């Protein structure tokens, strides 16, 4: 595998370029052909024809669509992503400001739910048909069926409003200017409930995938051989069987990382988390074309890249997989 990897990677990256271009072109036409006009937002409750005409000209919206698309792509090649209508600032800056909160929220949630999910999965697989397994499975089923919006509100009502353990909303305390460690612990407190909300769904998926995969592997011949050789159970499960059982989990986590940037729109809204999911939502409502295109570009790139990384991770986990 090792010898082929660089060439394989190069090919995959080259293939990604036309794919990304396709994503941009399709999205460009989709958002421009949807009804609505970004100037409505800028004009607010006012404006006359000269104002509308001047604004259209200022933002290049008076040009034919193919020309607008061409100009946009030309800019992207030069590293120019345009100005957000609503923020009146470079799209790059607007997105960059919202990236860290989203990465923090999604990152913590994915790591936490994957680690805990795999652990729960192993626990279940090792005690088939036990009360422990049954209660975990019922809990995961419920967790998977919970809408984030509802669960988030429920957690807020109980843990924030009733018990007062965690704040209701936001990323930092509005009344205090914390520095250093105090700031970190403040963010961690604000992070708890949104991470819990987001993790529940993901945790359920990982737990069930791990359990099913592991049970299948544990029934295979090589496991029996390992046991016959006298290997202790933890070693059999963790070093041999789990490694094979995790392949589908890698696929699911990989897909989640692809949507890392926008995957938490509802959670971000409920908890007033200042992330990218909310930015995408706002940009859609206000028909902020340059900002929308910028977010699509980011998401498209990240999905394509994580797909490549996932495929490579497969090879690391499973030596049978070969790349040519």
């Amino acid at each position, binding site marked *: 595998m090792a010898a082929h990897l660089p060439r394989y990677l190069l090919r995959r990256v080259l293939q990604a370029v036309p794919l990304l271009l396709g994503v941009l072109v399709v999205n460009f036409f989709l958002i421009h052909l949807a009804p609505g006009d970004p100037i409505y937002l800028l*004009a607010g*409750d006012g*404006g*006359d*024809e000269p104002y509308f005409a001047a604004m259209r000209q200022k933002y290049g919206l008076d040009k034919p669509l193919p020309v607008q698309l061409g100009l946009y792509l030309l800019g992207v090649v030069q590293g120019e992503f345009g100005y957000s209508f609503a923020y009146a600032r470079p799209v790059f800056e607007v997105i960059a400001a919202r990236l860290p*909160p989203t990465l923090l929220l999604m990152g913590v949630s994915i790591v936490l739910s994957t680690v805990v999910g795999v652990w729960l999965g192993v626990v279940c697989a090792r005690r088939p048909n036990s009360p422990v397994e049954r209660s975990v499975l019922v809990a995961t089923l419920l967790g998977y069926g919970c809408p984030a919006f509802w669960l988030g509100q429920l957690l807020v009502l109980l843990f924030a409003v009733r018990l007062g353990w965690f704040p209701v909303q*936001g990323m*930092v305390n509005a009344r205090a200017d914390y520095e250093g460690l105090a700031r970190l612990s403040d963010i961690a407190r604000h992070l708890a409930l949104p991470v819990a909300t987001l993790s529940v769904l993901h945790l359920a998926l990982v737990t069930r995938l791990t359990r099913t995969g592991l049970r299948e592997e544990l029934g295979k011949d090589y496991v029996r051989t390992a046991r016959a050789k006298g290997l202790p159970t933890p070693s059999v499960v963790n070093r041999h069987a789990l490694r094979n059982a995790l392949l589908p989990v890698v696929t699911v986590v990989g897909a989640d990382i692809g949507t890392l940037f926008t995957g938490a729109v509802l959670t971000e809204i409920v908890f007033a988390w200042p992330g990218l999911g*909310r930015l995408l939502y706002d940009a859609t409502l206000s028909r902020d074309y340059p900002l929308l295109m910028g977010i699509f570009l980011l998401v498209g790139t990240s999905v394509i890249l994580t797909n490549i990384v996932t495929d490579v991770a497969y090879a690391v986990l499973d030596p049978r997989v070969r790349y040519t």
Partner: protein
Amino acid sequence: MIPQQPSSFLARALRGGPGRLLWLTLMLIIAMTPMVAAQGTPEPRDGGTLVVSIASDPGHFNPAITTGFTQHVVADSMFNGLVGLDANLQPVPDLAESWEISDDGRVYTFYLRPDVAWHDGMPFTSADVKFSFEEVLLKYHSRTAAGLGAVLESIETPDDLTVVMTFTGPYAPLLRRLDVTEAPIIPKHIYEGIEDPTTAEANLKPVGTGPFKFVAYAQGDQVTLEANEDYFKEGLPRLDRVVFRVIPEANSALQALQSGEVDYAWNVTPAQIQLLQASPDLETATASASPGGALCINTMAFNLENEPLDQLEVRQAIYHALDRERMLEQIQFGAGKIATGPISSAMSDFYSADVTAYPYDPERAMELLDDAGLTPDENGVRLTLVFPHPNTFDRYGELIREQLGAVGIAVEDVSLDFNAATDRVFLDRDFDLAIVSYCNGADPEIGVRRVYDSRNIRPIPFSNAAAYSNPEVDALFDEAATTLNADERAAHYAEIQRILTADVPYMWLIETEGIRAFRPEFHDFKHWSGHFAETAWTENAAE
């Protein structure tokens, strides 16, 4: 408009209602308790932080380039207009301490306060006013550009503290469109020479003259302001800090208010009123004006270009078929009042009650429809009307479908997002009934006129959606705008209200009010104004 309620006990007791006796008893008990009574009415204090929830991210802080609600709610606290508006929306001095109007009504002379400095220490002068209007407001502030662009002839600055505005003809409404929301003054020394003021870096580090100064902005999260110690109004502001928190979900904002993370919420929905009334530790107030629009009326437009809506009887019938009491009760939860015509009753100088009324009367509605020859078919349907509306009006859609259905009018209720609904009604004109929250400003010339003037039948939002055309109404609006005598103006507007309610090109449903909720230790907000926190103070401030 109900200004700030002074104290919860007193206000609740005086407001009456079923709980009145209970509150009076409670007050009596409290008055007899020496320890509590000793506290008395609290005196204003200096200091403290106010945390305010807003529904969306402002993105920038230049109030002169936008009419956006969120931008103004935040930025207005850092800027001033030439003239302010009091609780009754009457002009009061702000940056201008006095003004004169020439006898012919064409020339306004403003005398500026001499003691005003920008937040960076530079002196404020008449040059800033001229620059703000000519280079920014008349180009980018959509309402001011549309309202003053055509009639303002020149702005002159004979000296540093005098501004002379000359109009092409007499112009009556000027003083009500110069407040910090309609015409904020921005610093010339910062924006001069910048090619495009809409993308200027300065929009993120605003320098104003207002009661609060900019400190920090965390995008999508919060904006922090601090008191301007050198503010030109003696003793103001009283608060040390104001933090605006972006909380998009109204329920989350209310929960943050209950848990004490937030002190003042702008984004309260009518459906939350009952919840708020059940929270004894929260105060509510309503205001008919806000930086997002003043004296708004939820108005339905008939598409007069479509048959049979061009018939007066049909329009009268539909108006009679609507139960607006129920709309007020079930959709607005009592926040507002039933509208009687095109001018809000809160615009007391211009409102007239001498109009044709359309009380809820389904019998009369059916008679009128019979008279118009619209008889029910075998399914009981006389007529089908298409009603596209923004999804924020979904509840109106449900009630209207039900109420018109009761008189045999089928309604095809189409819920769209705001942008798509605006396209469909104003651009495509693909509707029979439309609903718009027309906000009217403090003078009919600012908002009311555009809805009924036949010269404003055009494909832009908030124009004359009905395509109503009446030369007499057009002429009356022209005269009212150029007449300086207040009584004559009022007479013109009374005539307009009489004609419009007789013609019913629109149905005026509810005069809506904005709801604010806040923690009871805070007092003296100006709920109607962009300067809402200028006079506010908190009992929590350290002595």
